[in-house]
């Protein structure tokens, strides 16, 4: 290696450390604190592999959504419809399996998967078209979609969850591979890796970042801005549907009521992970760590006996802290 590329490697490592360092530190701090408090309460063992798998399992649904959301937010957009879409995807798959009535269960499950993912892509496609072709601000377009999709899910099921479903339905959400790693966790890790590759090493990913950085410059550099933005919402819809399948499989039912407020939790994880809401800046790695920070916090609080209400308050504080930290960092490096 020649000298200049060595220095760029060093710069890259430095930048990576600067981006993830504080977050990883926060993560470790969380684990240590919960372990210590746990021991005081005669409840050691928070810092363990089991917890990690538990946390990953719990974050699989949000995590899969967060990958898609990261892409959307990097273009400078937002998708508020994911919480409703999660429910719709689960409902649709459950409906197919229910119709199947116990015959050829796996065939129906696979048909359900395909249909749900298709639905996610269609929903994302609609959002993308509204935003690009009709120039409706993402916030408004997806807000409308959030309401309509929630309504559709309720209409299709009369507001009641679809259950019971055959045992095999739980495979995606609960089946352990190699003894203890659930399928959903493996899927999450694969999607994270795929998302990172897509964002960092493909033309599409580069265009996504260019659009978020400066849409007009990107357009005048020959980037097909409309198409890329549209695809970003299709991708987000697709991944949200996958998340919906995991959730529905885990619950063993297709409920139109799930996923309420999920959009905010997912956006929180993405923002805590350092992706800028004004676009152009962000990473899948950051989103993953952001997700872990939030999930470990929730699991840890449960571990030490702080219940939902307390968790909500703490999550708010963490979001603010993360964004403040990010602002300090960008201000510091402005000159």
């Amino acid at each position, binding site marked *: 290696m020649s000298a*200049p*590329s060595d*220095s*760029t490697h060093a*710069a*890259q490592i430095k930048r990576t450390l600067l981006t993830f360092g504080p977050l990883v530190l926060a993560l470790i701090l969380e684990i240590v604190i919960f372990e210590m408090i746990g021991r005081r309460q005669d409840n050691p063992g928070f810092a363990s592999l089991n917890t990690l798998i538990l946390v990953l399992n719990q974050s699989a649904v949000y995590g899969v959504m967060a990958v898609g959301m990261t892409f959307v937010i990097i273009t400078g957009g937002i998708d508020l419809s994911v919480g409703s879409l999660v429910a719709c995807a689960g409902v649709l798959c459950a409906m197919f399996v229910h119709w199947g009535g116990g015959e050829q269960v796996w065939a129906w499950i696979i048909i359900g998967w395909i249909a749900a993912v298709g639905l996610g892509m269609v929903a994302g496609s609609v959002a993308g078209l509204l935003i690009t072709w009709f120039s409706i601000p993402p916030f408004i377009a997806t807000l409308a979609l959030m309401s309509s999709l929630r309504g559709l899910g309720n209409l299709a099921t009369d507001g009641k969850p679809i259950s019971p479903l055959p045992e095999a339905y739980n495979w995606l959400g609960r089946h352990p591979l190699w003894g203890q790693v659930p399928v959903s966790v493996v899927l999450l890790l694969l999607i994270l890796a795929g998302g990172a*590759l897509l964002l960092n*090493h*493909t*033309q599409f990913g*580069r*265009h996504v*970042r*260019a659009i978020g*950085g*400066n849409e*007009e*410059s*990107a*357009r*005048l*550099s*020959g*980037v*097909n801005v409309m198409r890329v933005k549209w695809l970003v919402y299709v991708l987000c819809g697709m991944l949200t549907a996958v998340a919906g399948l995991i959730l529905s499989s885990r619950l063993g039912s297709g409920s139109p009521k799930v996923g309420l407020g999920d959009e905010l939790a997912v956006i929180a994880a993405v923002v805590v992970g350092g992706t800028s809401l004004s676009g*152009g*800046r962000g990473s899948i790695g950051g989103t993953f760590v952001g997700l872990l920070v939030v999930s470990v916090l929730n699991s840890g609080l449960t571990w030490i006996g702080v219940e939902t209400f307390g968790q909500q308050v703490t999550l708010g504080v963490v979001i603010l802290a993360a964004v403040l930290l990010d602002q300090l960092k960008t201000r510091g490096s402005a*000159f």
Partner: protein
Amino acid sequence: MSEYILEMRDVTKRFPGVLALDKAHLKLRPGDVHCLLGENGAGKSTMMKILAGAQPADSGEILIDGTAVQILSPHHAQELGISMIYQEFNLSPYLSVAENIFLGREPRLGKSPFIDWKRMYNDSREILKRIRVDLDVRRPVNELSVAQQQMVEIAKALSVKAKIIVMDEPSATLTEHELAALFDLIRTLRSDGIGLIYISHRLEEVFEIGDQVTVMRDGQHVATKPVSELNREEIIRMMVGRELTEEYPKEFFTRGEERLRVEGLGREGAFSDVSFSLYTGEIVSLTGLVGAGRTEVARAIFGADKITAGRIFLDGKPVEVRSPQDAIKYGIGLLTEDRKNQGLVLGMTVRENTTLASLKKLVKRLFINRKEERSVAEQYVRELQIKTPSVEQVVQNLSGGNQQKVVLAKWLFTQSRVLIFDEPTRGIDVGAKAEIFKLMNALIKKGVAILMISSELPEVLGMCDRVLVMHEGRLAGELTREEASQERIMRLATGMGKAEAA
């Protein structure tokens, strides 16, 4: 009372890795227009930021009316009578002229929280009358022209009783006519005893309006002299620190075949019936007053805006350019006037900006070949002598001239055969300008056809083989290099040259 309204002594400011100001000084008399000159990075802006209270100095003294002061914040600077007028105005677009002038200092009805509109409007009218500007004080400023907005900024400065007004490149976006109005206004301010610091890259203006000149280089004070004791060459030498052999290093090549031809090109509401040809081996300039439709023609050829009439031919064959993607496919590149908002993604690196328009070439089996990408970028950094620590530098941190080179690198990597430069030297210092012109020469030599849009007549006359002049959305005439003169171009540009051209 001191002779000087403002003295800055031994001002030093260090940023990580750079000594931005090294014991710089500046003395301003009331009623003087003091031109502050220097290349980009010479320390002018840092000096002014310190004066405006936007940044603290590491050491040094600032005296106002002979009294030492510590400028703590922009607000404090304002209280001390210092007003800055930046290139990007600090106006609130949907508020009226009067609301902007009194923003943050609205007159109240007695001690009530309600605004005394009558007084605000009257006072605003008074101030505008004083600077002889005729504007409706109730109009929202976004309906005003750039020049009028600038007048509002100046009115705002006067309303806070500014004694020192700093203007940073006030002429950059003005037409000739508006510039004359600005100079009239500056003369009025001067006779009122206000001290003006005037920053500009256009030396003609210095000779027209300036009283004193201070030249800075590498953060240091080089010289302060009355304008009357200086000439153009001397100023440039002091700025660059060496003899600049040629400001316009024009080289001549034989004219080759026709590369681009447009016939009857038009876009409703912008321009119409524009026809011309571009040959290899020449630089053709498209000039005219701001608003004559030059940029619009360029954008239309590049597919950034739709055309409603006319045809485009490339190498004699008709082509349809419906989008920038099409233009790039045909080998047409556009270096926009507004580099920061239209040419670059500022938050991306030199490498990423260089390859943005032709990433496809670097994709192997779905993925971008990073190693190849880096070597491409490094090659252009060497070739164009882009001053950057590495290709991983974010372009935001580069100087104007180097940013322009990155934009150029982007279009070179697309293998452009027609390059449209829109105001290629705007905001770029003298030394970097000559470098950009040399690069143009090298490109022509390689067979690229160049269309250069420029408002700077000396640069048009210095670099072009032919000049196309636009007036109100139409081509008013074409001049060869021999025929062209400032006067003839201006006659055509102002619509007076019709008879002569015919």
